[in-house]
């Protein structure tokens, strides 16, 4: 399977101008929300039309604006699993699954109903109605429905984003089996590092409507994948729990932290979890701002990432990771050894 994609599309103030090719296996479209990933997938499915461009699948032209060819979605044989499952509310699970079987040529049909139902573990749901399913079950049925229409390519637009951690963990193994057993090429949209690292063979990094990087997951993604969402896990001591503002104050060698009232005895040691994206950096006195949590920190190292700059800090002897844009790193003159203030937007108790 080879998908070649080359398209331009303007949507209001946003402009997409991307080109890439993907081979068989799972290709992940990775990037922040609003970067144009869904637009790309919609263009491949035929739900949107490019202003200019050419998209081919295995030599079949799906769209070619120069030649005036636009294949309607129904004739592309491109399956689509949406973020919100979009099951037909008036049909049972069984009818939802077999919906695609009514259309298209018999030739080139693949996939056995029983095998796919078994693969996705939805045999017990067949006679239920979509409204009686949990989010994870709905998404599994949606995947089955797309597969049973015998697509040549499967598009998945953040299929796990609407699910909680437990449901995601429930579905990820099914996606792995899909990849390994069905041999179906998949274009997988996500902004979750762990999903992409686990599923994808190839990664296309999308930034502001453009392809920022492309290549095998091992090389392109090594730096990003090594990173976790965690900025720091700090150990602090409860200092006061009677705050009139409904907060508990925690003592840390680098400063004081506020968390929503804990109701724990003074002197208790607690661990707090801070996400990298909740940390902002300031050089010098930050002035009058609303962020109450300020820790004195020292820059240990800087590392340029694909999307931003990872700044490793030393806060009172404990490591912390902050992520800032390249422009911000330049403006602040961040360099190893520089003293900064880490401004922390949210602090969560680490209950693990």
């Amino acid at each position, binding site marked *: 399977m080879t998908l070649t994609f080359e398209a331009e599309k303007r949507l209001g103030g946003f402009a997409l101008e991307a080109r890439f090719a993907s081979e068989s296996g799972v290709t992940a479209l990775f990037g922040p929300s609003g970067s144009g990933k869904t637009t790309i997938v919609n263009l491949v*499915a035929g739900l949107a039309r490019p202003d200019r461009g050419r998209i081919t699948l295995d030599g079949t032209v799906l769209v070619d604006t120069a030649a005036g060819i636009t294949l309607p979605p129904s004739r592309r044989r*491109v399956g*689509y699993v*949406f973020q*919100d499952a979009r099951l037909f509310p*008036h049909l049972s699970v069984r009818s939802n699954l077999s*919906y695609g079987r*009514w259309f298209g040529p018999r030739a080139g049909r693949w996939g056995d109903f029983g095998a796919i139902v078994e693969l996705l573990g939805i045999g017990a749901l067949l006679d239920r109605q979509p409204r009686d399913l949990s989010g994870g079950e709905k998404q599994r049925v949606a995947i089955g429905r*797309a597969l049973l*229409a015998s697509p040549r390519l499967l598009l998945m637009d953040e299929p796990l984003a609407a699910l909680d951690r437990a449901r995601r963990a429930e579905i990820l193994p099914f996606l792995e089996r899909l990849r390994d057993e069905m041999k179906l090429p998949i274009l997988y949209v996500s902004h979750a590092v762990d999903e992409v690292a686990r599923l994808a063979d190839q990664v296309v990094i999308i930034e502001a409507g453009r392809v920022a990087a492309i290549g095998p997951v091992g090389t392109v993604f090594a730096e990003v994948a090594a990173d976790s969402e965690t900025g720091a896990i700090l150990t602090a001591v409860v200092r006061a729990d009677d705050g009139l503002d409904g907060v508990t104050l925690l003592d840390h060698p680098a400063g004081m932290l506020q968390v929503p009232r804990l109701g724990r005895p003074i002197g208790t040691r607690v661990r707090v979890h801070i996400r990298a994206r909740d940390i902002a950096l300031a050089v010098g006195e930050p002035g009058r701002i609303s962020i109450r949590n300020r820790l004195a920190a020292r820059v240990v190292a800087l590392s340029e990432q694909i999307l931003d700059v990872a700044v490793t800090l030393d806060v009172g002897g404990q490591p912390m990771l902050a992520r800032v844009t390249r422009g911000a790193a330049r403006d602040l003159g961040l360099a190893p050894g520089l003293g900064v203030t880490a401004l922390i937007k949210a602090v969560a108790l680490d209950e693990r």
Partner: protein
Amino acid sequence: MDSLFTADEWQAIALSLRVASVAVAASLPFGIACAMLLARGRFPGRTLFSAIIHLPLVMPPVVTGFLLLLAFGRRGPIGAFLDQHFGIVLAFRWTGAALACAVMGFPLMVRAIALSIEAIDQRLEQAASTLGAGRIAVFLTVTLPLALPGILAGLVLSFARALGEFGATITFVSNIPGETQTIPSAIYSLIQTPGGDGAALSLTVVSVLISLGALVLSEAIARRATREGRP
């Protein structure tokens, strides 16, 4: 039961039901088509189109009836054409009464259906198209079934409207017992007749019962539709 209604009154009841049923059944396909256009269409003159469809709702029924007479009467442009080429005569026939009722109930039918089409999540139709369904298949398998509550509500509303239609009917097809005398025209005639009050009252009761039934039915459909909800 014979003592309850005279033959004429039975005829009026039966005719009313027949006229209303035919009116509703014949206008349904057009109603769905116009509702689709109103709910989904983006074309120049859409506002005018909407206004024309809703016109019978606000115009005096007599005016509608007179316009029908001008257009569909034997000498009218459409009436003459139908008579010469197909031998169809509407004026002063029960079929004409059905036409008048269909026109008067049309805005109500279109409104109810258009509202329920507007409420359909079009992303479901997109999903259907990625599964291989062409435009017509999407319409038949997704749009139409999801609009069903609105279609049923529209049917009930326009059926009730047809049963009560008086002004346009009497203007267009007059008040001929056995041919065009529906319940409202029969009541009207009875009131004009000395000693007809009693019979008028029993027909009124019938009319109230049928209307009440229609309202209860449409309520039940609406409730069922909200309970089923949308994803």
